[in-house]
């Protein structure tokens, strides 16, 4: 390739690189810049460089609740992912069962929670399902003669409630991915397995799962990250301003929001964000390495 041909592709892609730079890279660099300043309400325009002061304060904050928020986030991510993968796999298998009538209708209906705007879904669940006065769960309880219960006022029931809602909202994506992956598996493998006496378990363990794993890996990574940085469900169900429920659940992102972004201290908030950003990068390296090793 001559010199001109080497440069030309860069020239063509320059606007796109600029755009990505402006939208993705610039905010990160600007956040890093702000994190080294004392930009806050009292120094709105006259902020100064204060070196690592904000990082020292951000790291002090890690002692006061960050570690428990991180632990909650890890438990939240692991539980959600395990249940989601298992449930989505079983449902996708069911949808691909031979002789299933109206399979397309079921698939369309299953997409519904995914298609709904998250904010609407969460508020619907909050009022329609979990509300102590109007919620479906309490209507059922009172029909059975039990007293009403506040599902969102204590941490463990609130965690389970958030998880159920997250599953409802996130499952359709994995079901769709698994459904697509299942359809790509050659039927002749199953016919051979049946001829060799392989049962349902053997077919799943030795044919289906190994065949769909490479196709599903990117979807699972994406869902893992979405679950890890989940904010909407926990915030809107339990800690929305003016509607606090009493639960004190905190994930890394809700912790960052509560401790940094309400203070109008942009220097400190940026430092906290960069520290959390570092944690997420470490998490992503860890997940990617795990996947790469599995492939090798």
């Amino acid at each position, binding site marked *: 390739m001559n010199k001109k041909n080497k440069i*030309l592709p860069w*020239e*063509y892609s*320059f*606007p796109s690189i*600029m*755009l990505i730079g*402006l939208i993705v890279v610039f905010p990160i660099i600007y956040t890093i810049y702000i994190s080294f300043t004392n930009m*806050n*309400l*009292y120094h*709105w*325009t006259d902020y100064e460089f204060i070196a690592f002061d904000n990082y020292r*304060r951000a790291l002090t904050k890690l002692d*006061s609740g960050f570690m428990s928020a991180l632990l909650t986030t890890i438990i939240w991510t692991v539980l959600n992912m395990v249940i989601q993968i298992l449930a989505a796999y079983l449902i996708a298998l069911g949808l691909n069962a031979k002789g299933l009538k109206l399979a397309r209708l079921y698939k369309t209906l299953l997409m519904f929670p995914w298609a709904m705007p998250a904010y609407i879904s969460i508020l619907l669940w909050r*009022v329609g399902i979990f*509300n*102590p*006065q*109007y919620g479906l769960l309490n209507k059922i309880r*009172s029909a059975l003669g039990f*007293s*009403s219960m*506040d599902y969102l*006022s*204590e941490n463990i029931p609130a965690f389970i409630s958030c998880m159920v809602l997250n599953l409802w909202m996130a499952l359709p994506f994995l079901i769709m991915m698994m459904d697509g992956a299942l359809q790509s598996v050659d039927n002749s493998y199953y016919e051979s397995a049946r001829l060799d006496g392989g049962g349902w378990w053997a077919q799943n363990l030795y044919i289906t799962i190994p065949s769909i794993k490479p196709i599903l890996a990117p979807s699972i990574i994406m869902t893992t990250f979405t679950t890890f940085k989940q904010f909407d469900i926990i915030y809107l169900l339990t800690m929305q*301003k*003016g*509607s*606090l*429920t*009493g*639960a*004190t659940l905190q994930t890394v992102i809700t912790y960052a929001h*509560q*401790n*940094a972004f*309400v*203070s*109008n*201290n942009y220097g*400190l908030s940026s430092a906290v964000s960069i520290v959390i950003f570092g944690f997420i990068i470490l998490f992503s390296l860890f997940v990617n390495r795990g996947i790469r090793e599995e492939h090798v």
Partner: protein
Amino acid sequence: MKKMALVLCIAMTAAMVTGCSKNTDSVAAKQGNKEVLNPIRIWHDGDKAMIQLMEDHLNQALSDDGITVKFEQKSGLTDQIKLYGSDEVNGPDLYMYAHDSLGMFVEMGALAPITDVIDKNVYADMLPMTMKAGNYKDAQYLMPVYFETLLFIYNKDLWEGEVPSTTEELYSYMKNHTDATAGTYALVNQHSTAYNVAPLINGFGGFIINEQAKPGLNDKKTMEAIEYNKKFAELEADGDYNTVNALFKDGKAAAIIGGPWLISGVKEAKINYGIKSLCDFKLPNGNALVPYSGVQGVGVMKHAAETKKEAVEKVLKEIADPQLGIDLAENSRCAPANQKSYENPTVSKDEMIAAMRKTADIAQPMPNIPQMSVMWGPTESLLAAVNKSGKELNNVADEYQKQAETAIADMQ
């Protein structure tokens, strides 16, 4: 073809970069003529019909002076003012908003005291409470327009007998007329929302945050009030805004503590409602309930006070006109800040406005210091922990006090 593609690429990049640039030249300096004084732009996030009424009133009154006022609605007004408050070209000249953000805007350096453009006599007739709301560090920054306070709103068809005049009588009534299993309540309230519990906290002599920016969540009197609120909370359903409103509008609650913003929905639900001022209820300590008040006022941006002083002065004078208060009261049922507006019989006879006017003599304006913005979270977390999670107040008050102190320290 390749050259054409390259030219297009360069043009796109240039357009993208220049599109992000900011025009910082003063409009006045650019055009150098008097026309640039128009229009006077006022940012707000209020009700459209009410703002239209204000705009029409001001433009009619100022037409002889050649001044045009243009109200522009902005969602997330606080953030918009943070971004554009000091921007003469893209930002507003004035803004109209609730007074509790005042300290934040002043500390950011966006506002000028209104005394830089008008004489004190212009606002001499305003209710003292509304003036206090717009005062920060001994300087007057807001010209008050109208105010809101919480009210006791009851369903005349459901409430039995007279509405009590003490909180203890009210509690007895609630105990006798609440059946949570059947889903019927005597009174509902957002019992874990700081704004709704403030009447008790203030009445007991406690405070959420004082003028020296000290949080008072573990103050003895605040704790007494929270403990007292708890026994009411047990009879007031979930306390969530949507739930309590729905219960009242569905006729499952005989009364609700809420603001004037509830009235349109209550009317739509065809509730035969009555209103009582919260200051008509006496606490066991003999004090009345002391709700917070929220005052909507107009503030002046620093640049407008310098470059458009005359026009801004005339606009503020018109905003202080008692007739504007009367128009707002008659059309939008706002409680005017100007005392003279209440001389009008339509205003003084309106049950809701009269109740708010009565409350104004005792109500405390929400604190307008910037630190208040971080107090809602810890205060409501404490209330929810006590009222919803059943935590012992003595065990958690210090924890949330510490949380509030940390949040305040984090602002610096």
